[in-house]
């Protein structure tokens, strides 16, 4: 699936929730289900400290595609990390750099990406793109 298709799929999933509680319950579920973070990568250089919560992000390249592994100590943040990974992991660097992540806004979670929340998510999105940029540079 392309990033665009995945984003549409996520928006579709979230459209079934009328109550904010259900939406957050789902985020918590996604957070709990996120593939465990490999502790060998739990390094300071992979830590995006958001003051309120922490985010860890690791990325690697395999066969022209970028893969991400992420984690957070706060479960709601971790749920959003899971969504980001679902949207971008396994895509080419070009696709990652070319696509806007519009789904967060559409599913009503934009407030969590505001710099004032200082939860590490803003830094994480930036870092995901930076990884893609670095891998792209290495390719040529």
């Amino acid at each position, binding site marked *: 699936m392309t990033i665009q298709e995945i984003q549409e799929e996520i928006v579709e999933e979230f459209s079934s929730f009328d109550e*904010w*509680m259900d939406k*957050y*319950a789902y985020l*918590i579920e996604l957070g709990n289900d996120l593939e465990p973070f490999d502790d060998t990568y739990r390094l300071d250089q992979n830590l995006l400290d958001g*003051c*309120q*919560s922490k985010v860890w992000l690791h990325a690697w390249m395999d066969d022209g595609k970028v893969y991400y592994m992420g984690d957070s*100590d*706060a*479960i*709601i*943040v971790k749920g959003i990390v899971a969504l980001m990974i679902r949207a971008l992991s396994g895509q080419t660097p070009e696709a990652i750099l070319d696509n806007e992540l519009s789904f967060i806004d559409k599913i009503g979670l934009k407030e*969590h990406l505001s710099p004032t929340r200082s*939860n590490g998510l803003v830094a994480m999105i930036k870092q995901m793109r930076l990884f893609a940029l670095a891998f792209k540079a290495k390719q040529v």
Partner: protein
Amino acid sequence: MSLDIQHIRGQFPILHTEVYGKPLVYFDNAATTHKPARVVNKVNEIYHTLNSNIHRGVHYLSNQATLAYEEARKKVQLFVNAPNSHEIIFTSGATAAINLMATSFGDTYIKEGDEVIISTMEHHSNIVPWQLMCKRKKAVLKVIPLFENGELDMQAFENLLSEKTKLVSVAYVSNSLGTVNAIPEIIEKAHSNNTPVMVDAAQAVQHLNVDVQELDVDFLVFSGHKIYGPTGTGVLYGKEKYLNEMEPWQGGGEMIKSVSFEETTYNELPFKFEAGTPNIAGVVGLGEAIDFVSELGLDNIAAYEHELLQYATARLNEIEGMRIIGTANNKSSVISFLVKEIHPFDLGTMLDKMGIAIRTGHHCAQPVMDFYKIPGTMRASLAVYNTKEEIDKLVDGINKVAVLFG
């Protein structure tokens, strides 16, 4: 006298706003309190009717503005029972007042090898300025340790005192634990060591009666915005004998008597420490806030808040997995807590969606969090306009959310 809380609530328009379509429940009062309409109106009135710079104009408005500003100083003096109004210095907040102290007191009295004592429970504002000063002066910062319940180890404090101790600077009330420190005892011990004491009363003056003469405290600071006043206002009280000797902090207009390039003579107190144009309307607004608090009566406020604190503590303790951080005998209306393994950010986010405003994180007191080996807490801090019904909403909210986290 018991207070009419609904009447008090009526004076705070913001308490009647809705967030996410739900009535606001505001429990972040230790960060800043809301302002009653009379304070906001007073600030407005200053700008609308007597806006002018102070202490320097011959004209009518300047004179009126100066009178209003100096009247606010008088109000603060009476509020903390300072002997003289010129011992009241206006600053932009508690942080600025402590920085003033660290610089001016430090420059005047502290030499290499000297020591300043603070405590583990200080707000970063009462840590970092002293660290900076110690670095400049090659002085040493000593820290009073905590007990598990959030009280200071007074024996350890006594042991820290020596002829090297030049100042003790501690919080009256901890913003992260709610502990009310034994300030009279700290002052007595420090004074018998000939050491002056600065009290950070940022979390105290809005909750309990503070009388600087009764305490015989040497310096005391607080912020206007935490006592129902405007942001950008604060106070340093200092004993005249020290303030007269101390070097000025910032240089500029208003704080000088005469300036030439060879020599500048400083103005008298309090102007020596008030360089530049101050927050005139804000300070007058602070005077109004002090009237608001004084009319309610701090003893009445303290009694009501104590009742709220006891109610909230009991109700929160009904919650499964509740852990209250800070269980000192003498506590002010600040409750830090954790619920099971739930991350404060998660619980704070969910409560926010229910219209309940609490603070999450380390509350600018990281050494306290390190002491308890936790990354942060949730903190509900109460003010005189809070109610038991609001506490019930908080408890219901936590119970509702906790099930989601398993």
